[in-house]
């Protein structure tokens, strides 16, 4: 027989755990409604199609939108091959012993380095040492270093999920390692890798601090035309507006956030979709 005190205790505990969890859901809802209610009025074509301005009614996100698109395209094309190749190397080729261990621990630690520190690295190496200046290229290289560990981890996890029987089947036909890797392992692991890559990019698109350090500017009134151009990004424009005292600019910031978060949510949704499809397809 369970004593009433124990039952009461159990009920109270369950109640607290439930409340704690649903509070976080509530926070998300409050956050989203707050931003929507602040920003929706400013969200129109003129907002999407204007450059920054001292007058809130004339100000827009255009430079940020194009800057973010450029930056993401560039970051993706740098970080995806490097991250995926590094993941393939660690998982399929792997080096044993102390060096392998160092690479391993190093990746885990890199993932925990604050993004602003990557900014300082980018500033010194890309902006100043390589002389790329405050360009899209500097920003993209910095962000690539930042998200590489995430892509590596995602790649390794998806590769580990590929059954060994497939590898052995391929080797038994006289396949070489790179045939097995590109012909068998990569195609199976690809959906998982894509999920990880999209999530990593959705993190990168919201990054602000490292870009401030490498010199992205918030007040820019042109669209970048090449990788050596100066640029701004959506989060930076949002930061600039949010930092001003006028309520109108706060609402502009909220409108910018709506755009930014929508993009991020769509990316997350696509990632979940791919993951879902993958789980259905590959059952061994």
């Amino acid at each position: 027989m369970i004593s009433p005190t124990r039952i009461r205790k159990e009920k109270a505990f369950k109640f607290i755990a439930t409340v704690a969890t649903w509070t976080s859901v509530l926070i998300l809802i409050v956050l989203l409604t707050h931003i929507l209610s602040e920003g929706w009025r400013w969200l129109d074509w003129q907002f999407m199609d204007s450059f920054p301005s001292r007058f809130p009614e004339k100000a827009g996100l255009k430079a940020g939108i194009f800057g973010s698109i450029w930056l993401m395209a560039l970051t993706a094309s740098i970080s995806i091959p490097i991250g995926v190749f590094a993941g393939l190397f660690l998982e399929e080729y792997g080096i044993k012993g102390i060096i392998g261990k160092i690479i391993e621990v190093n990746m885990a630690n890199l993932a925990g380095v604050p993004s602003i520190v990557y900014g300082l690295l980018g500033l010194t190496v890309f902006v100043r040492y390589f002389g790329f200046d405050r360009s899209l290229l500097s920003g993209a290289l910095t962000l690539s270093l930042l998200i590489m560990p995430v892509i590596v981890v995602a790649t390794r996890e998806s590769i580990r999920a590929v059954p060994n029987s497939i590898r052995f089947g391929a080797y038994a036909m006289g396949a070489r390692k790179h045939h097995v890797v590109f012909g068998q392992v990569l195609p199976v692991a690809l959906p998982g890798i894509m999920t990880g890559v999209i999530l990593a990019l959705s993190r990168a698109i919201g990054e602000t601090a490292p870009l401030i350090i490498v010199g992205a500017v918030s007040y820019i009134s042109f669209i970048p035309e090449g990788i050596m151009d100066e640029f701004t990004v959506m989060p930076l424009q949002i930061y600039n507006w949010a930092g001003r005292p006028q309520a109108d600019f706060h609402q502009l910031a909220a409108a910018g956030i709506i755009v930014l978060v929508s993009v991020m949510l769509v990316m997350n949704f696509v990632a979940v979709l791919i993951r879902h499809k993958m789980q259905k397809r590959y059952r061994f």
Partner: protein
Amino acid sequence: MNIETVLSAKNVNIWYGEKHAIRNISLDIYKNHVTAIIGPSGCGKSTLLRSFNRMNDFVETLKQKGGIFFEGNNLLEADPIEVRTRIGMVFQRPNPFPKSIFNNITWGPKIHGYTGDLEQLVEESLKGAALWDEVKDRLNDSALELSGGQQQRLCIARTIAMKPEIILMDEPCSALDPKSTIRVEDLITDLKKDYTIIIVTHNMQQASRVSDYTAFFYEGKMVEFGQTDKIFTAPKEKKTEDYITGRFG
């Protein structure tokens, strides 16, 4: 039928770390015949089979000594890629590639630079594996949609597509139902016209049904080797007799 030795193991020893898994085994494999390796689990039969196409290379702690001679060369010292191209393998569990049926067959030849007619190769191979009639209308479907027995025959077909000299089979029916097992066994009998087959099995009936020669392994040693009907009707060794009459195993 005249008998020609195609593969010849000489004093092969294999260790897993400290464990001496294969003890000084010498064995001749005859061309266009089926040789069965039988024995209780853990007797080393699969280990030896895997050394025939260097799949043991993937076991890190493994050490092997001796010679396995194939066309005059010791294949333990040859290029493993070359070895595996000419000596194919069918695994215990069907492991088709997660690709279409068509691509399962063509993948191997393609990576080896095959330039012939792929459609013809697929048809030939599938016919050779007695699978053509069942799948000819859905060659572009995923191989994973096939039944277990069909998948195993597909694995045999993709091995045939490589035109190997020898096909190794590691308990190819252990994951199949009885009906599929019979189909694969019939297939093995057909295949020996063109190929030399070495099959590892713990199923003695299967060995007696499909093989011409049988080697009985026990605790890493080869106890007896001879024509299958002789081994099963009049074994020389007491151990063999005990095993095939079911006293242990």
